[in-house]
């Protein structure tokens, strides 16, 4: 059996890639994709620990997260579409009206 550290390393790597994407990308689509990466990193953790402990709860949880991610993509793409309509581009740094 693959030791859990390997899964953890994998998920940490994917999470960092996602985080890097969130922090550096300005395009909303990349942004969304990076968020998906971070979620999937969490999913890997959940599944790995479920396997390790022999408890299905983690896997069930991962299913929930996938459902959540689907919903999020739906809303996220909607937001990006609105962004594009209003600003003509999908750069997240352009709309700054939502502050104080």
């Amino acid at each position, binding site marked *: 059996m693959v030791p859990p550290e390997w899964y953890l390393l994998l998920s940490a790597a994917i999470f960092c890639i996602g*985080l890097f994407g*969130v*922090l*550096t*990308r*300005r395009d909303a689509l990349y*942004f969304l994709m990076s968020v998906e990466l971070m979620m999937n990193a969490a999913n890997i953790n959940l599944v790995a620990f479920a396997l390790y402990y022999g408890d299905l709860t983690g896997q069930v949880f991962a299913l929930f997260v996938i459902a959540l991610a689907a919903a999020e993509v739906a809303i996220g793409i909607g937001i990006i579409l609105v962004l594009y309509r209003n600003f003509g581009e999908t750069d*997240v*740094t352009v*709309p*700054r*009206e*939502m*502050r*104080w």
Partner: protein
Amino acid sequence: MVDAFAYVPAIVLLPFFSFLVALGAGKYLPKGGAFGGIAATAGSFLLSLWVAATVLGGRTYNETIYTWAGGDQFELTFGLLIDPLSALMLVIVTLIALLVHVFSLGYMNDEGETGLPRYYAGLGLFTASMLGFVVADNLLMAFMFFELVGLCSYLLIGFHFRQPGPPSAAKKAFLVTRFGDYFFLVGLVAVFATFGTAQFAGPESFPALAEQALNGSFDAWTPLGLGVEQWFTIVGLLVLGGAVGKSAQFPLHTWLPDAMEGPTPVSALIHAATMVAAGVYLVARMFGFYALTPTTLAIIAFVGGFTALFAATMGVVKEELKQVLAYSTISQYGYMMLALGAGSYVAATFHLLTHAFFKALLFLGAGAVIIAMHHNENMWDMGGLKSKMPVTYWTFLAGSLALAGIFPFSGFWSKDEILYEAFIHGLSDPLLLGGWIMGLLAVPVTAFYTFRMVFLTFHGEPRSETARDPHAVRWNVKGPLTVLGSLAVVAGFVNMVPVQKLLGIEGIDFLTQWLDNDFGGIDGVSYSHYNDLLATYAGYEAGEIAGSAETTLIVAAGLSLGLAVLGVLVAWKLYDVPEPTEHTAKLGGAKDVLYNNYYQDEVQVWLAYRTEDVAGGADTFDQGIIDGVVNGISSVSLAVGDRVRRIQTGVVSQYAAMLTLGLVVLILVLGVTGGWFL
């Protein structure tokens, strides 16, 4: 049998009802409610006579009639104390009030004043308050009515409120007496704290308890580790503060001359029977307490003597009739205080009685002159009124002789007794002797300014148009003058102690017997009891010169009479001429000082302004510092908020960065504290 004492509340309430009637319905009544006031005070007067007759028959009354506030800690009650002293005072007050009401018909109604209902309402309330004060059986009730008297003086002095002067004078009168009353209130509260009661008379009264405390049979509360005697002296002085304020003693006398802004009948009432008399009456009422504290007595005597002389000197240079009378009032009440300080309760009461008559007379006489002079009060515009208003002249002259203390007018007897008592007791006490010397020096000054006033007003040639053709006065002016004129002549005969001592005629010292409970009274409230207290606790003893009481008596009486006659003669020499001139220039630099009342008012005004400066400073401090801190906190919050909100840029990436940063910091903190990295 109908009991006179059952009607004592009516004595107080009748003028109070006249107040209500005049206030509520005065404008629909003839004469603005005057008749209601006259009827009420007449009723009170008759009832007072009845009460006095009952006291003469040997009965007294000392009962609580109403519990104002009960409780375990204190019982605060109203009650009636009718003994020889208060019965006498009731008669004086109601009589003067009645005459003043009648006189007001001439002074106010006939002169076409407006606001008469307010005037008669004020008079009614004034009389009622004073009567309530007189019959009070405890210090709290006395204080309450004492304050109401102050309110009434405010209302009446400020009667002509549309002019600038009277409201200012009214404010000053209330404020200065309030300052005195502050000390009275502290003293009153101290009496409650010390004795648990403020009753004047009876075995459970505070003078009785104070006596027991001094001989050790009562454990009195004292604050701050003070001894009983020291504490009683302080309490006595505190209560005295009220008396000094109301009786216009130095240094709280400055309100009284200003109070001349009020209508003249009001001045008569204030000076003769109500407000100013209240202070002296208060000290007399609780004399059983003062007799225990020699220091207080000596201070009372000294302040009294000083005031007598001090006020008399200012009276010398005044140009307005009522101003002279105002200073004479201050001076005469100084004599009464001197008498009380000298331990002579009877002499003080005696002078209170005679002074009430002759001073009311003089004020009403002055009022008659003022009517005649079309409200010009300057004596230098008068002259020669003697032939034009004979009734006023002769009664005024009787009052002046009494004021100057000329034998055998009433003032002579009382003033002589005061000076005699101060002298014999003063031989062993320097403070008291000082009071006596000042009192004696005031005698010629008093006689001088009194007759200066008489001569300038009535003698010589008229010095103005109005004096040549004065306004006539009616019965309602002459009637009260005649009554008071007669009393000013004969009132002294109720207490001819010197004659009794010299000639041995028994029974002509009626007032002494009256106040000594010879006709009946309350134990512990009598002249001889006070004398015992004075001898035991204050160490008062009567001195003699040349080893003979008779010689002492003759010397003291001769001295004061001689000085009085001297004063009259000087005034006669200087002012009883057809064309009198001001001789004030001879006084040199002293003239300005006297004209300006020793700059007393300036000092008080200066104090008032400094207080306002302090208040202004406090306001600046409050607005600047205290509220500044409050506003500062809000400004700082706003400013910080303004800075902090700039973090919120609206750029999603930066939010995400901050989220991450926060997470990292959190992990680091948890890690360091949780020891993960070790």
